[in-house]
């Protein structure tokens, strides 16, 4: 595609807020592995400026935008307060609606996520293939059960959001989270199937209308005013952003109720069971959507720190390369980025890795690491005490 006209509706004041100081560059995973200005936040913003000004884009431009993992590491690093995430979302939306950026097959794929039956059928198929050892180990997929036991509500003090892929593939993690939450004396409610996709991946892909549809549907699944807890950092970030995405009071009120499950627990550390026995040494990987977007990563250390020696990485929270569907579309960059992360992890002598985001968790597992959700680790330690 060459010189396709485009209208990039990014507010000028956002575009000019970048003073091109470059301080974000080392915090950008794609710049780190490519050393390409075009794969850096400063570069991408300059490109947006140019497209905004010239009103045309081409394949080169699309490629530069598409390689962004949307980890928003640049946002926390930027002293000027540049709102990179929303600029990138607007750009992707403009590309998706005004160009052939997202072909039909990709759109179909994203649709499946919010379509429980299709996702279940697909997952069951993978599960079956796994039984016959037809799925390569290195994909790092969890062992998917062919028949899923349902999650059972135990009260209505807090909601636990379940999501799409995580629910289909990692329901046992939800169960572990439920047990930890219940150990504080809380009763847990699970939403119905209207809440089976938060729409995060759609926003990342520029499919905002679809994301808005999913958001409205999801909100209906959480009546009342109980806190809505999320055990996937990516979904949590998205639910917290509904206020901005839908721009309505109802959505803003909804977003106010959303907390990462660790944030909620960190406020009730004393209600958690005492620790006994060993404190294994665990490296904590900060998911971008927890650290750079929700800015709530400290809570993981607080909760985990009660039971284990929680060690942080010395890499300023650089992304691991998972980025939702990113690793599927840009396997090379994703694995180069992951290699950096693995090196950083391996420098620390630890028994296991904890990651509060299923996407990161799977991505790191496929890199050969032992990774569990922090609350699965906690759940294991609590159970032993009983």
């Amino acid at each position, binding site marked *: 595609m060459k010189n396709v006209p485009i209208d990039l509706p990014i507010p*000028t*004041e956002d575009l*000019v*807020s*970048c*003073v*091109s*100081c*470059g*301080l974000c*560059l*080392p915090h950008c995973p794609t710049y780190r592995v490519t*050393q*390409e*200005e*075009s794969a850096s936040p400063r*570069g991408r913003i*300059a*490109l947006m400026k*140019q*497209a905004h*000004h*010239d009103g045309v884009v*081409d394949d*080169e*431009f699309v490629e*530069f935008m598409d390689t962004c993992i949307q980890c928003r590491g640049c946002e926390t690093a*930027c*002293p*000027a*307060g*540049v709102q990179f995430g929303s600029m990138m979302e607007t750009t992707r939306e403009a590309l998706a609606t005004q160009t052939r950026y997202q072909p039909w097959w990709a759109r179909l794929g994203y649709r499946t996520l919010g379509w429980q039956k299709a996702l279940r059928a697909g997952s069951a198929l993978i599960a079956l293939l796994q039984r016959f050892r037809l799925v390569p180990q290195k994909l790092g997929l969890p062992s998917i059960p062919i028949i899923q036991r349902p999650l059972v509500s135990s009260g209505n003090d807090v909601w636990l959001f379940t999501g799409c892929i995580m629910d289909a593939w990692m329901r046992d993690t939800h169960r572990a989270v439920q047990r930890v939450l219940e150990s504080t004396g809380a009763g847990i409610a699970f939403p119905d199937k209207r809440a089976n996709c938060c729409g995060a991946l759609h926003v990342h892909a520029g499919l905002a209308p679809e994301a808005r549809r999913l958001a409205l549907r999801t909100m209906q699944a959480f009546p009342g005013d109980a806190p809505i807890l999320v055990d996937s950092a990516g979904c949590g970030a998205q639910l917290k952003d509904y206020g901005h995405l839908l721009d309505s009071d109802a959505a803003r009120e909804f977003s106010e109720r959303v907390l990462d499950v660790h944030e909620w627990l960190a406020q009730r550390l004393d209600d958690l069971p005492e620790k006994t026995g060993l404190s294994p040494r665990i490296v904590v990987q900060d998911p971008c959507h927890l650290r750079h977007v929700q800015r709530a990563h400290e809570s993981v250390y607080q909760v985990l720190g009660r039971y284990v020696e929680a060690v942080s990485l*010395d890499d300023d929270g650089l992304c691991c390369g998972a980025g939702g569907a990113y690793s599927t579309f840009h396997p090379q960059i994703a694995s180069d980025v992951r290699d950096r992360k693995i090196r950083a992890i391996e420098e620390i002598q630890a028994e296991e890795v904890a990651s509060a985001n299923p996407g990161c968790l799977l991505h790191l597992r496929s890199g050969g690491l032992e990774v569990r959700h922090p609350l699965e680790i906690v759940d294991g330690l609590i159970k032993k005490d009983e």
Partner: protein
Amino acid sequence: MVHKSADKKLLSELRSFLGDRARDGDFELGLYAKDGSVLKGDPMIVCLPTSTEEVQQIILACRRYDRPFLARGSGTGLAGGAVPVGDPVVIATAKMNKILDIDIDNRIAWVEPGVLNLDLSRELSPLGFHFAPDPSSQQVCSIGGNVANNSGGPHCLAYGVTSAHVAAIEVVLPDGRVALLGDLTAESPGYDLRGLFIGSEGTMGVATKVAVRLTPNPPEVRTLLLDFADVRDGAAAVSSIIANGLIPAALEMMDQRAIEIVEAFVNAGYPTEADAVLLVELDGLPGGVEHGVEVVRAVANRHQVGSVRVAADDAERALLWKGRKNAFGAVARIKPDYYLHDTVVPRGKLVEVLEKVYQIADAYDLIAVNVFHAGDGNLHPILAYDSEEKGVLERVQAAGRAIVTASIEAGGVLSGEHGIGLEKRDYMGMLFSAHDMATQDLVREAFDPDGFANPLKVLPSGSRCSDSFGQHVPDGAWV
């Protein structure tokens, strides 16, 4: 933006050995048009070499097609040094980012020019060493850029600037030959070409390897934050600390506006109601550090200090420094654009010149923010503005000139660390006579008689005999 179409033959020649690392895409070229300054140029072709040999081949190809070239590190320079004017081929060193050898016995590390300053110090840290020059941009600026600009940083007050920390440099000269300037001995034979190259802003060739000296990490570090209700007391305290025979590792100052914007970014508990703060760092052996803390406290008390806060631990210290090091970028929180100045004045003149800076900003209806290396009198007045405002650029330029003039009148110099580049070359005559500049040009010419390396930089056009690639700072350069 409309680009001149790249010289097709040169491009295909470059592609023959660089492959897709020679670029001419419209969008991509636009990314190499600017550095951290407010100036903008127009690159012809961008090359991303990975070795000395490739740099050499690029330069030889440029020579064959009579094309100038320009080295670019991380593009954080603030004087337009890496802004391409005169249609050059940009040689970006970003992919030459390997630490080649860490030689503890010699206290030397050999690095490629694209290695980021902080990456190097982080790599050295477990071994007990660091690279002393620490520009506020250290997380992203390259060692090659540091060498080219002879960069400084907060800790250069005690440790000296880049020149004192570089033993040798491998350079591809503007005629394509490869030279090793300096060596690992204390007294390298012949003239100090190494010293001459450092700070030459890419006009004497492209650095392709650098041997940097390693500085041992201090056993004890103490960071103090002093606040003052009057910026004049703060500035006077700076002079007195030094006059008391104490050279802190770092001695930085921020004025009220700077404190506010920095605090909004880092939440480090900077006192936003103070008129000025000093960030003082003492390092070394425990006794000396303790003594230093006492001297600083005593001096501060004599100058009506509000409070003296001593960072309790590494985390608090890191947070205070994070605020200081991100201050420039954070200025964008008040206005979208800023023009950052860099002059040095005698410490004793700090108060006087600071007051002039505020007056000048007022006179031109601009906002001035001051955050700077006070210990060595290195002012960094920042003029914040919105380029969308009509006629604002003229005012910013005029105010800038007035600030430089005031600094020089106070016995200061044009630049303490950012260099002359494109931005200040036409100011050189304020500090140097025509004969001084002609002599400097003779020296440059010894390396690059035809003016192929980074044309139009450092010296005003009149003093260069070989400006074949254009005469003036292009009018369109200001953005």
